[in-house]
């Protein structure tokens, strides 16, 4: 074991971690934005509307992320139409291909989480909304979505960590994320264990930070569920 390699290449690993961070952040933000309409369509009462999000979610949850990345990065280039279109400058870049694949993937998982949260809200609350005369939009904006946000948090935190781990696949399409950078360094130094372990530790630290952040947000969002702190005045 030669851990001096880790020290000398640590700045490069951090460069990789920065790419990983950008990948994860962009795809979870975009993924959450796409997920909401998908989730709402998924719980629609019309079977015709329901079937599309169902198929979308089924495809992206039923196939490996690796296949999805390859389909976007290599698959798109099979068609001349794509190569001549205005999207080619984006689809040519491995970074944006990874973002597209991750966004589509995480939006399918997130949509299922959102759907579960919206459906977990007790019927009584929906009825209460209707009784006080709220419109559908008002009901979602005022009651259902804020309530769902609190319910969703633990599962959504897990999804972000899964995305962080999934982002390692970006290294298979030549991106120098944390895993990709580790592989590049190893190709030069030939010290697989040391560098991979260092990369693993960085991933662990990032997950722990995410977990800690979510604990705080959860505490804040669900503070009405916590123990009640009422100050009882001293008996004089």
């Amino acid at each position, binding site marked *: 074991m030669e851990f001096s390699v880790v020290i000398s290449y640590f700045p490069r690993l951090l460069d990789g971690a920065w790419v990983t961070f950008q990948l994860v952040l962009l795809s979870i933000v975009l993924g959450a934005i796409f997920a909401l309409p998908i989730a709402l369509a998924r719980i629609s009462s019309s079977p015709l509307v329901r079937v599309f999000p169902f198929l979308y979610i089924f495809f992206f949850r039923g196939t490996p992320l*690796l*296949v999805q990345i390859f*389909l976007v990065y*290599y698959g798109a280039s099979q*068609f001349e139409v794509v190569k001549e279109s205005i999207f080619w400058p984006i689809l040519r870049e491995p970074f944006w291909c990874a973002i597209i694949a991750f966004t589509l993937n995480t939006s399918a998982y997130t949509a299922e989480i959102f759907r579960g949260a919206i459906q977990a809200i007790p019927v009584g609350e929906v009825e209460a909304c209707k009784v006080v005369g709220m419109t559908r939009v008002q009901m979602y904006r005022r009651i259902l979505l804020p309530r769902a946000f609190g319910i969703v948090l633990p599962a959504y935190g897990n999804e972000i960590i899964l995305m962080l781990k999934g982002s*390692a696949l970006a290294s298979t399409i030549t991106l120098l994320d944390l895993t990709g950078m580790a592989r590049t360094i190893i190709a030069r130094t030939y010290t697989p*264990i040391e560098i*991979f372990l260092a990369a693993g530790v960085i991933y662990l630290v990032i997950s722990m930070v995410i977990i800690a952040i979510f604990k705080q947000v959860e505490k804040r969002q669900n503070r009405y569920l916590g123990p009640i702190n009422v100050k009882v005045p001293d008996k004089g």
Partner: protein
Amino acid sequence: MIDLHGFGDQLLQGAIITVELAFASLVVGLILGLLGASAKLSSIKVLQWIANAYTTIIRGIPELLTVLIIYFGATSVLMSVASLFGYDEYIEIGAFTAGVTALGLTFGAYATEVFRGALQSIPKGQHEAATAMGMGKVRKFYRIILPQVWRMALPGLGNLFLVLLKDTALVSVVGLDDIMRKANIAVSTTKEPFLFYSAAACMYLILTIVSMVAVHYMEQKASRGIKRA
């Protein structure tokens, strides 16, 4: 009909490797999961500590990295251990062995939590009743505890198996001839990436559907003693 340029049978061979890898990892993972759960629930502090470290580390680092560490790392570890015993030949572990080890470790870490939840959900009275009937520890475990744990754990394990099935694709990165690598080979000769990766996606979808149906039947069989009102 879709023309796979004669690579159809190659893809099917890949599917067989994928299924073999998934089942081998499942067996390793189930054993690790049961051991991990028992360690977490044991009263010995060291065992708890080891199990906690195992699940935290494995669940916190990417599966791809686990595969790479095992594939590239295990070789040098094995060689340095072997050289202590005076064996200096080159040792190499295959992609399949590395895949089973890495995916089994991953499955085991998640299964530990599933089994722990299931073990804890069994009422204390069941343990006491079994002991009162005069059953020994081992007999109590496989007659009373395990069948109930199995029923409780099946939905969670089913989900984990679906994740495992998709993770098998990662082992293609270190050169195992599974569906994914066969698709890569086909792409490099035919230059039709969209076609072959879509075909690969369909094969994974079919495997997913088959597993979902199988898990559903196993769940029904496991809970046949429980009547729904």
